[in-house]
C-alpha cells in the first residue's frame, strides 16, 4: 500500500481559472465542503491572460442587443456545429454572471450613464464585451479570488478556520481521477475502470513531491486547454491538456478535438515571445491589418457566408466605428479563423513582414493618448518585450495556437461528463459550446456560465448520494503512485534503453504538432504525425528525471507529457477523419465546408488496449462519428432560411 496524504471533501475542483473558481464558489455556497486544486499559485491561472472582455448581451451600449442576437452570433462563429443548447444557456445567462461580479467588487469600465461599458469584437453584431481596458481576465480572476477569500472569511467568523469549507491546494498536480470498483464489463482489464463512479483524485504536491488522495464523490474538471502541445502558442505552461487526459483515462469521451483556434494576432518577434497574444481589441478599437505592400488585405478574404455583413470598401469600414447603424463592419473583425487563414495566405504569398507576420497598425488610427488609455497592456508589452511603440509604429503579428474548442463531452444543462457519474467539466476543457470556432469574448462568459452550472450540478450530485460514497480501491491508488513516480526509475533496467529527456521530447512533440497538424492541414502530413506521435509515446515510456521530488520541473514536465501526447493523438486522429474545412479545422486537401459534416461530431475515446503495457505502438484513441442533436425549432427560427441553407442540409430544414 502506498503511503499518501489523505483528505476528504464533497466536491473537488481541478483548476483555479475562471471556470474552476466560479464552480468552487457555487459548490461552497450550496453547502459543500469544497477543495480547489491548481498547478500554479492561487490567482495566477491562465485566465489572467484574457484581454478583450466578457461577452454578454446587456445592451448597455447598443440597446438592440439581446440573448437571441448573441446566440445567433455564437452559432455563426462556430459554423453551426455548436452544441446549440449550450450556446442558448450561455447567451441567456451571461449578463447575470457579469452583473454578479460587480456585487463581488469587480470594477468594469463605465458608459457615460454609469453602466458597464461594452466594446466591439470580431463576430459580435453589437458592442458586447464588458471589459477593463485590456486586462479583463485579470479583473475576472482577481474578483473570483477575492470572492473565495470573502467566503473563507465568513467561515473563519463562524468556525475559527478559514479553510473549514473551502480550501485551495495550490501548486498541486492531479494525475488521475479515481473511481470505485463497479465495472459494467466483466472481464475488462483491472485498470479499465469503465462503469464506476467518481471516488476522488490522485495527485502530488509540486513543492514537496508528496503524493495525496482526496476522496470526493464529485470532481469538476476546469483545467483549460492544450496549447503547450504546439510550438507557437499564446498559452502558458499549465495548458498541457490535463483535464482532457484525465477525462479520457477515467472513461469519458471527448468531442470536437479537431477544432483548434489559431488566434490571428500573436507576436512574431522577438523569437522568445513568439506566440504571445495581441488582443483582438486592437482591431475592435480601430486597428487595421496591412501586408508589406501597405494593402488592407482583409477586404479580399470575406467568405460568401459573411458577404452581406461586412464592408466592401475602406470608407464604409471606417464609417462603422462611429455610425454602426449605417455602415457594415470592417473585415478585420471577421471571426478569428477567417482572419488567421487570411494572414497565413498573405505571408505565404510573399507579402509578409520581415519577421514573417503582417502589420497590425493602430498608430495611424487613434491618438497616442487614446491608445495608451484603451490598450495599456499592449502598449506595455510591445514596449518592454519588442522595443516597439505601438502609438508610433505598426506591430508585426501572425497566427498563434490559442484555444481548444474540443473537450469533454458534457450534458449541456449540468456540465456532467457523459458516461462517468460524478465527473463534471467546465470552461475550455469542456467541448461543444463553441462548435468549430469560438468568438472572442465568449470564453470568459463561458467560464462563468458553465463554471457556475458545473459547481451547482456537482453539489446536487454529491448531496444526492447521501451517506453512501464511492471509494477507490487501494490497487488503483498504488497504480497511480507508481505511474507518477516512474520517471525517477527510468533507465535503471538495461533492456529498456536509455532514459529520455522530458524537455527534448516536449520540443519534438511541439514541432510535430506545429508542422503537421497546425493551422493548415493535409491528410498525408497528419498520417505522418500519427506515426511520429506513436514513436514519441514509446520514448515517453522511458522518460527520466534527475534530482529529487522537491519542486522538480523536469519531473513535472515528464508527468504532463502523458497528457499532451494523449490529447495530440486525439487532435491528429479527428483532424485526419474530418474531410472538410470548418472553423478551426482547415484542410488544404478538402477546402470546402460540407453541410453533411455539420451533422457529425467526432468522438474520441480511450481504446481497450490503451491500458495494456505492450500496446504502446497501437492507437490509444478510438474515434467514432455521432450525429449532432437537431437544433430546436424556435432557435432555428431566429435565422433566415437562406442563411441556414449555407449550413444545414435540405432535409434538415424540411423536417
Amino acid at each position, binding site marked *: 500500500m502506498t503511503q499518501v496524504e489523505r483528505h476528504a471533501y464533497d466536491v473537488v475542483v481541478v483548476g483555479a481559472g475562471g471556470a474552476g473558481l466560479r464552480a468552487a464558489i457555487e459548490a461552497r455556497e450550496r453547502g459543500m465542503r469544497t477543495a480547489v486544486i491548481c498547478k500554479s499559485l492561487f490567482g495566477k491561472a491562465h485566465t489572467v*491572460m484574457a484581454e478583450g472582455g466578457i461577452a454578454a448581451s446587456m445592451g448597455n451600449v447598443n440597446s438592440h442587443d439581446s440573448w437571441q442576437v448573441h446566440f445567433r452570433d455564437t452559432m455563426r462563429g462556430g459554423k453551426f456545429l455548436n452544441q446549440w443548447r449550450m450556446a442558448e444557456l450561455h447567451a441567456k445567462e451571461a449578463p447575470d454572471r457579469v452583473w454578479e461580479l*460587480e456585487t463581488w467588487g469587480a470594477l468594469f469600465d463605465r458608459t457615460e450613464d454609469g453602466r458597464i461599458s461594452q466594446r466591439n469584437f470580431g463576430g459580435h453584431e453589437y458592442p458586447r464585451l464588458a471589459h477593463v481596458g485590456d486586462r479583463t481576465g485579470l479583473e475576472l480572476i482577481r474578483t473570483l479570488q477575492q470572492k473565495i477569500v470573502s467566503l473563507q472569511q465568513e467561515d473563519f467568523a463562524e468556525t475559527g478556520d478559514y479553510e473549514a469549507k473551502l480550501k485551495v491546494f495550490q501548486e498541486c498536480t492531479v494525475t488521475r481521477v479515481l473511481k470505485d470498483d463497479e465495472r459494467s464489463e466483466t472481464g475488462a482489464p483491472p485498470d479499465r475502470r469503465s462503469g464506476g463512479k467518481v471516488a476522488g483524485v490522485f495527485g502530488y504536491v509540486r513543492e514537496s513531491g508528496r503524493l495525496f488522495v482526496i476522496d470526493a464523490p464529485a470532481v469538476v474538471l476546469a483545467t483549460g486547454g492544450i496549447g503547450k502541445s504546439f510550438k507557437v502558442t499564446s498559452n502558458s505552461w499549465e495548458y498541457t491538456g490535463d483535464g482532457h487526459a484525465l477525462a479520457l483515462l477515467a472513461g469519458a469521451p471527448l468531442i470536437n478535438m479537431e477544432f483548434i483556434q489559431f488566434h490571428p494576432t500573436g507576436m512574431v518577434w522577438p523569437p522568445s515571445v513568439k506566440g504571445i497574444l495581441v488582443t483582438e481589441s486592437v482591431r475592435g478599437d480601430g486597428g487595421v491589418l496591412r501586408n508589406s505592400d501597405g494593402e488592407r488585405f482583409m477586404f479580399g478574404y470575406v467568405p460568401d457566408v459573411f458577404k452581406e455583413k461586412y464592408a466592401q470598401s475602406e470608407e464604409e469600414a471606417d464609417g462603422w466605428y462611429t455610425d454602426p447603424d449605417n455602415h457594415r463592419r470592417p473585415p478585420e473583425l471577421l471571426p478569428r479563423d477567417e482572419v488567421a487563414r487570411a494572414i497565413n495566405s498573405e505571408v505565404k504569398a510573399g507579402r509578409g513582414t520581415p519577421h514573417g507576420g503582417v502589420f497590425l497598425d493602430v498608430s495611424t488610427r487613434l491618438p497616442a493618448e487614446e491608445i495608451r488609455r484603451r490598450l495599456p497592456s499592449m502598449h506595455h508589452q510591445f514596449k518592454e518585450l519588442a522595443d516597439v511603440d505601438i502609438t508610433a509604429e505598426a506591430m508585426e503579428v501572425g497566427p498563434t495556437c490559442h484555444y481548444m474548442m474540443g473537450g469533454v463531452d458534457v450534458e449541456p444543462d449540468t456540465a456532467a461528463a457523459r458516461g462517468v457519474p460524478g465527473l463534471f467539466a467546465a470552461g475550455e476543457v469542456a467541448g461543444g459550446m463553441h462548435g468549430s470556432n469560438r468568438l472572442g469574448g465568449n470564453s470568459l462568459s463561458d467560464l462563468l456560465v458553465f463554471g457556475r452550472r458545473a459547481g451547482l450540478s456537482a453539489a446536487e450530485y454529491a448531496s444526492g448520494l447521501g451517506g453512501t460514497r464511492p471509494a477507490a480501491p487501494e490497487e488503483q491508488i498504488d497504480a497511480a503512485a507508481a505511474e507518477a513516480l516512474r520517471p525517477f526509475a527510468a533507465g535503471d533496467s538495461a533492456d529498456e534503453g536509455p532514459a529520455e529527456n522530458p524537455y527534448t521530447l516536449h520540443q519534438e512533440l511541439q514541432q510535430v504538432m506545429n508542422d503537421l497538424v497546425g493551422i493548415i492541414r493535409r491528410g498525408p502530413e497528419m498520417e505522418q504525425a500519427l506515426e511520429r506521435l506513436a514513436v514519441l509515446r514509446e520514448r515517453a515510456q522511458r522518460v527520466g528525471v534527475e534530482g529529487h521530488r522537491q519542486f522538480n520541473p523536469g519531473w513535472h514536465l515528464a508527468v504532463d507529457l502523458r497528457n499532451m501526447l494523449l490529447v495530440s493523438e486525439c487532435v491528429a486522429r479527428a483532424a485526419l477523419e474530418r474531410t472538410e474545412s470548418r472553423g478551426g479545422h482547415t484542410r488544404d486537401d478538402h477546402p470546402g465546408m460540407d453541410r453533411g459534416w455539420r451533422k457529425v461530431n467526432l468522438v474520441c475515446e480511450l481504446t481497450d488496449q490503451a491500458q495494456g503495457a505492450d500496446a504502446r505502438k497501437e492507437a490509444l484513441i478510438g474515434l467514432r462519428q455521432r450525429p449532432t442533436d437537431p437544433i430546436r425549432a424556435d432557435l432555428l427560427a431566429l435565422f433566415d432560411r437562406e442563411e441556414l441553407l449555407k449550413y444545414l442540409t435540405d432535409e434538415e430544414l424540411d423536417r
Partner: protein
Amino acid sequence: MTHTAHFKVWRGDTDGGDLRDYEVEVNDGEVVLDIIHRLQATQAADLAVRWNCKAGKCGSCSAEVNGRPRLMCMTRMSVFEPDETVTVTPLRAFPVIRDLVTDVSFNYDKARQVPAFVPPKGVPAGEYRMQQVDVERSQEFRKCIECFLCQDTCHVVRDHEENKAAFAGPRFLMRIAELDMHPLDAAADQGLVRAASAQEDHGLGYCNITKCCTEVCPEHIQITDNALIPLKERAIDRKYDPLVWLGSRIRRRKE
C-alpha cells in the same frame, strides 16, 4: 545575434545553498526567464523556478536579478552588457523552498486579513451605477498582478522578520485603499472604517513612504502616492477630527 553569458544562479533549499556558475547561450531579444529555461533544458533539469504567462501578466516569475526585485519574464537580456555577470537569486523577504522558488504564503495570509468588499444594501445586481472617473482610482490598484515584488523590497519586512505579523505590506495596504476608494463599498455601514483599520490593524504606520514599492512595481502603479499617502491622510483626518471623535463616543454609548 548570439553570445555566451555568464550567469550565477542561487541553488539550494531550506538547508542552505550557494551561487552556481553557468555559461549559457543568449539570443537576440531574449529575457532572463528564457535563459533560466535554457539552463533547465540543457544543464540543470531540476532547477526550480515559478513562471506562468511569460508576458508580465501573472506575476509568478519574481526573483532578484543583480540584487533588484524583478519579473524575470520582463527583464530583457539587452539591459546587461554581454560580458556582465547576471546573478539571479530568490526573493529575499520570503523563506526559500528550493532554488528560485520561495514560500510566499505570508501574502496569502495577509490577503485573508483584509475584510472583503461589502456590497451596498438595496442595490440589486445589474443596477450598480458608477462614473468612469470614480472607478479609475481603484482600477489603478486593481492592475496589481500580485508579483509581491513590493512586499519583497519593502524595508519594513525585508530584513525585519519581526515586523511581519503586524504589517500587511504595500500590496495589501493598497488593497485597503482600493476598497476605501470603491464608489459603492458599504463597509462603513457595518461600522468598518477602512482607513482607520489600515492604521490600527494592518500596520500602515510602519510605512514611512520611501517609495521603494513604487519603484519596483512592474505595472507602474503609483503605490505610495496614490494609495498609501491618501490612506494615511484619511486615517489621520479621522483620528483628529473632533466630530468623528464625538460620533464614535456617542455610538459607543448606545452599544
